[in-house]
C-alpha cells in the first residue's frame, strides 16, 4: 500500500485475523458450531494515522478491535504491534505489551468502576506498570486530567457525579496514562449526545497531535469517521470489504456494500437531498454462524453475479491504497 499520506512506518499489522466464538448446545454442551465474528481481516495501520473502521451493528467491528488488543484469545492470524508479534502470546506475557496499546470504550458509564474515585481510575494503569511514589502518581494523574480538560478538583469524585462527556474524558485519560502508541477507540462517541460528540472527537484529535498517537477508530457514524479518519476500512459480516483513503472512499466507493452504506448518509442540503439516489438493501444480514457460500454479501448485493455465490472474493488492490474484495473488480 503506497500512498503519499501513508509514508510512515507500519505500527499495527493485522493478517488474517479470525475470531470465532464456539456455540455449545444440548445436554452435553457439545460444540455445534461457531459464530464467525471476525473472519479473516487484514490491514495495516501506519504510525500517527487514524484508521476508521465502519460497518453496521453486529458486523464484528468491536470484536475486531478487542481481538487486536488481545482481549480475546484469537482463533487464528497474526497481529504485530510496533514490530512485536502478539497473536499467539499467552495472556500473562501480554502484560508487558499492554502499555503500548490501550483502549477507549463505548459506554463511559459502564467502563468506569463506580466505586473508584477519578484519581484511582486514572491511576490504575500507573499502579500496574510503574513504581511511582504517591506524589509522583498524583502529579501524573493531575497532568492527565489537565490534558483531557478535566478540572483538577474533580480528582476525588466518583464517576456517577459526571456527565457522559466528562466520563469519556476520564476513560481517555486512563488510556493515555501509560503513554501508549496505539489506541483502539471502540465507538467512543456512540453513547454521547451530538454536541458532546464533537468535543470528544476534537479532544481525540488534539491528543493525537500532542502525543503522536495512532488510532483505530471504530464507529458506525460515517460523518464522524469522515471527519477524523485518514483511511477507512468497511466491514461486513466479519470481513473487510473495502479499504481506502478517506477522500477516495467517500468520492468513489467501489464495493456495492460501501455504495449502499454511503448512500444512507443524510444529505444536509435539501436541494441536493432530492437528487440523492438511495440504494436500499433487501433482506437481513445473514447469521455470522452460517455465512453464505461465496461472497458474504451475495445474499443482498444489488449487483450479484453467478460467480459471487460460488467463490469468495479476495481483497484486490485496484488503485494505490484502495483495496476491494469484490468480483466486479476482478479484472481491473
Amino acid at each position: 500500500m503506497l500512498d503519499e499520506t501513508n509514508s510512515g512506518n507500519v505500527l499495527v499489522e493485522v493478517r488474517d485475523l479470525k475470531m470465532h466464538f464456539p456455540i455449545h448446545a444440548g445436554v452435553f454442551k457439545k460444540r455445534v458450531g461457531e459464530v464467525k465474528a471476525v473472519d479473516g481481516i487484514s490491514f495495516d495501520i501506519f504510525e500517527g494515522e487514524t484508521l476508521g473502521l465502519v460497518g453496521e451493528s453486529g458486523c464484528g467491528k468491536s470484536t475486531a478491535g478487542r481481538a487486536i488488543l488481545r482481549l480475546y484469545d484469537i482463533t487464528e492470524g497474526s497481529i504485530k504491534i510496533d514490530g512485536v508479534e502478539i497473536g499467539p502470546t499467552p495472556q500473562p506475557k501480554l502484560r508487558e505489551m499492554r502499555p503500548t496499546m490501550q483502549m477507549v470504550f463505548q459506554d463511559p458509564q459502564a467502563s468506569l468502576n463506580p466505586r473508584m474515585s477519578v484519581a484511582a481510575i486514572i491511576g490504575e494503569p500507573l499502579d500496574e506498570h510503574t513504581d511511582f511514589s504517591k506524589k509522583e502518581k498524583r502529579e501524573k494523574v493531575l497532568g492527565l486530567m489537565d490534558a483531557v480538560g478535566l478540572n483538577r478538583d474533580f480528582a476525588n469524585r466518583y464517576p456517577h457525579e459526571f456527565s457522559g462527556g466528562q466520563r469519556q474524558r476520564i476513560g481517555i485519560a486512563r488510556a493515555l496514562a501509560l503513554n501508549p502508541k496505539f489506541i483502539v477507540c471502540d465507538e467512543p462517541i456512540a453513547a454521547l449526545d451530538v454536541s458532546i460528540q464533537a468535543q470528544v472527537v476534537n479532544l481525540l484529535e488534539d491528543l493525537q497531535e500532542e502525543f503522536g498517537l495512532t488510532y483505530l477508530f471504530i464507529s458506525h457514524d460515517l460523518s464522524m469517521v469522515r471527519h477524523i479518519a485518514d483511511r477507512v476500512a468497511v466491514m461486513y459480516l466479519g470481513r473487510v470489504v473495502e479499504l481506502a483513503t478517506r477522500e477516495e472512499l467517500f468520492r468513489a466507493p467501489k464495493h456495492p456494500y460501501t455504495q449502499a452504506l454511503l448512500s444512507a448518509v443524510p444529505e444536509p442540503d435539501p436541494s441536493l437531498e432530492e437528487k440523492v439516489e438511495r440504494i436500499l438493501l433487501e433482506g437481513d444480514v445473514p447469521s455470522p454462524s452460517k455465512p453464505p457460500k461465496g461472497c458474504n454479501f451475495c445474499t443482498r448485493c444489488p449487483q450479484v453475479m453467478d460467480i459471487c455465490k460460488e467463490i469468495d472474493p479476495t481483497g484486490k488492490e485496484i488503485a494505490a491504497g484502495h483495496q476491494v474484495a469484490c468480483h466486479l473488480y476482478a479484472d481491473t
Partner: protein
Amino acid sequence: MTDATIQAARPPRSQWWDVWDQFKTHKGAMAGLIFFVFIIAAVYLGPFLWTIDPTYIDIRARNSGPSLAHPFGADQLGRDILARMLQGGQVSISVGLTAMLLSLVLGTFVGVLAGYWKRLDGLLMRLTDLFLALPLLPLLLVIIMLFRDPLRAMFGLETGIFILIVFVIGITSWMQTARIVRGDVLALKEREYVLAARSIGTPSRRVVLRHILPNIMSPIMVSATLGIANAIITESALSFLGLGFPPDYPTWGRLLFDAKDMIQQYPERVIWPGLAISLTVLAVNYIGDGLRDALDPRIRGR
C-alpha cells in the same frame, strides 16, 4: 507542574472519612451501632461490676423474681440470671461473629472462584450443592462426636468446644453466600470496567480485589448480618441438643431453652435472653444496612 499547583488541588481525603460521614446520617445504623457497642461493653465489662459467679448456687433464692440482690431474678437452682446473661452474651456474640466471619470468607472465596474462573465453576458449584444436600443434624452429630474430645484435649474445655462450634456452624452455612456471590460475579465480570482493567494488564487476582469485591459488597453485607443471627440461633439449637457447650455453661440459647419449660410460671426468664438475641441481631442488621449504603459512592452524599 510546580508544587503550588499540586497543593492547590485538594489532597486526597481518606475514603473512610466519607464512609463514616455517610454512616452517621443513617439513623437506624447509628442506633444499631450504639446498642451493639452497649451490648459488647455490657457482656465483656459487666462481669467486673456484677461480680456474682454465674454458676454459684444460692438455693434459697431459687425461682425468685426480680429483686435488688438478683435484678433479673434467679433460676430454678438459684443462680443469678443477670450474671448468666452477661456471661452467656460473651459466648453467643463471639460465636455469632466468628462463625459469620468464617462462613462469609468461605462463601465469598468459593463464590468468587466459581464465578470468575469458568474452569472451577462446575466443580465448586457441585460441591456447594453437595453441602446443601447434606442432612445437617446428623452431620453435626457426627462431627461433634468425632472431634469434641480431641479438641478439648488440645485447647482446653471451653476453647475446644468454642472452636468446634464455630467451625461446624461456619462450614454448614457458607453455601448461600457462595451462590449469591457467584451470581453477582458472573454479572460483574462482563462489565466494561473489568475489560478495561484487563486491557491495562491488571492480573486476574487484582481485578477481583479491586473491581469485583468492592462491587459485591451489598450482597455480602446482607449475608453477613443474616449470618450472625443464624449463627447465634444455631448455637442455641446445638446447646439444646446437648451438643454445644456443657450444660452448666450459660449461653443465650441455653438460657432460653432452660427457661422454656417454665414459660408459664416465669415468662421473664424466656423474655430476657430472647430479647437479647433479637435486639443484637436487629442492631447488627441495621449496622450492615448503614455500612452497605455508606460504602456505595452513588448513595453517599445524598
